[in-house]
């Protein structure tokens, strides 16, 4: 086992010295790096993990720290999602955005809240099946850069984004629709009737 004594060295030198030793070492070999502070331990650990090496650390008898890096031996992390205990709702989840504001009281606040809501949708574990946008909601898919970007993310994740064509026309936004497709009242009505649940912020 190669030992690198990086005690007394400030970051980034412990990492630089460890990388030099790793470049000389063979697959499966372990490098032991000695350092005198915990931050250096953490920076070495980050580097080793990013390079897919197994890494462990501890304290030495003289009060310093060691980090042991084994080349190319990262134990595979299980990517299995924890099983959810919540029963899956039957039918599709449909989000209805009928205004470019959320709630009533103050429109400036309401607009910020709506943008926050659409962003939060992108952060959920499961995306809705469909987002319907009508009346003032049509502005969210045609005029507001942030919500357009977030709706695109939802679309990429498999969500259908549908905006009312009548509404786009009414607001003069037909040419500006930037995400998803145009829909009509028949589809809006059908989608809502067949939904397992409808979410209206």
């Amino acid at each position, binding site marked *: 086992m190669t030992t690198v004594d990086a005690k007394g060295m400030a*970051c980034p030198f412990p*990492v630089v010295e460890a990388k030099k030793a790793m470049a000389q070492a063979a697959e499966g070999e372990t490098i032991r790096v000695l350092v005198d502070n915990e931050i250096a331990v*953490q*920076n070495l650990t*980050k580097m080793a993990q990013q390079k897919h090496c197994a890494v462990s650390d501890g304290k030495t008898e003289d009060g310093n720290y060691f980090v042991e890096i084994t080349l190319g031996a990262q134990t595979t992390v299980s990517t299995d999602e924890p099983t959810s205990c919540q029963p899956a709702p039957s039918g599709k989840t449909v989000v209805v955005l009928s205004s470019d504001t959320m709630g009533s009281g103050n429109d400036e606040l309401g607009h*910020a809240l709506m943008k*926050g809501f659409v962003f939060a949708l992108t*952060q959920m574990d499961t995306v809705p099946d469909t987002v319907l946008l009508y009346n003032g909601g049509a502005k969210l898919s045609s005029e507001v850069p942030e919500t357009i970007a977030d709706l695109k*993310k939802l679309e990429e994740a498999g969500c259908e984004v549908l905006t009312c064509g009548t509404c786009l026309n009414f607001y003069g936004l037909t040419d500006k629709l930037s995400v998803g497709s145009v829909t009509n009242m028949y589809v809006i009505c059908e989608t809502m009737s067949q939904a397992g649940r409808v979410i209206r912020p």
Partner: protein
Amino acid sequence: MEETNKLFCKGGGCTAKLGPAVLERVLSRLPRPTDEQLLVGCESSDDAAVYRLTDDIAVVQTLDFFPPMLEDPYLFGQIAAANALSDIWAMGGTAKTALNIVCFPENMDLNILGAIMTGGSEKVSEAGASLAGGHSIADSDVKYGLSVMGTVHPDKIRTNNTCRIGDCLVLTKPLGVGLIMTANRVGQAKQEWFDAAVQSMTTLNRWACETSMPYEVHACTDVTGFGLLGHLREMIQPSYSAVVRADSVPMLDGARWCAEEFLLTAAAQRTRNFLNGKVRFAVDDFVLEEVLFDPQTSGGLLMSVPERQADALLADIRALGLPCGIIGSIVPRMDCDIIVTK
């Protein structure tokens, strides 16, 4: 650079800052000032102290000094001064006087000290302020900076935690100077990366501050030792969160490369530890994380402005010549202080 200067730089600039966790613990035990004219003191994490003299005038006081982050003493003087002066502009003030703070080894070449102080005084002049004295002590290592006094109208103070929901966040300089200076120390920074980083660090925030004066800036801070995320976190209140759009964050060429090569500072890791649980990365990009945590010496201003003014402000800031961007926005309270997304 001659070999004789080589002991000059031991990894300085804002990377030399004590970690935020350590600071909070010590400061929280000190008695609180009670003078009502002290408008901004140590109860917030603000950039400078502000004291009201009359209804129209308050003084802004700040100081900053650190060891060299590069080998050229003249550039170091310029950068240290630009960095120290910055806190005045972060508060929306005007710099008036500055005092030198100097630590210098007795047996070191005095020409080096002369070069440092020349660089510093040039920046004080450019700031429109007067260098009015200073204090020097013999020390084992070089440290330099300024104590600066400025003025501000008491109604126009730009505190750092008064963002409003819906605001856009404008950053006036690119990130990455900490990583590039670290790479430079180990001889791995390209000359053009180094030059761009130095240009950014020697640029006074005065120009960005003055450019932003016609705009409704709700909150402002400067990005220094705690990195973008550390300083953004100081802007956040329990009633709102911030979303950072990774693709819009201005970065110096080479910054990502340096992070990929793990030329990481201790300061960035301290901030990462401090912000554990307060920042959520919705994008899996280790290198990006390191750039967002990277300690900035003489970094840019981070301003929270109404969305309707953000594009115009950004265009004006961009005309000053440095990479800049609308890096995100203030949103209704989410699950943590800051969310970093694509």
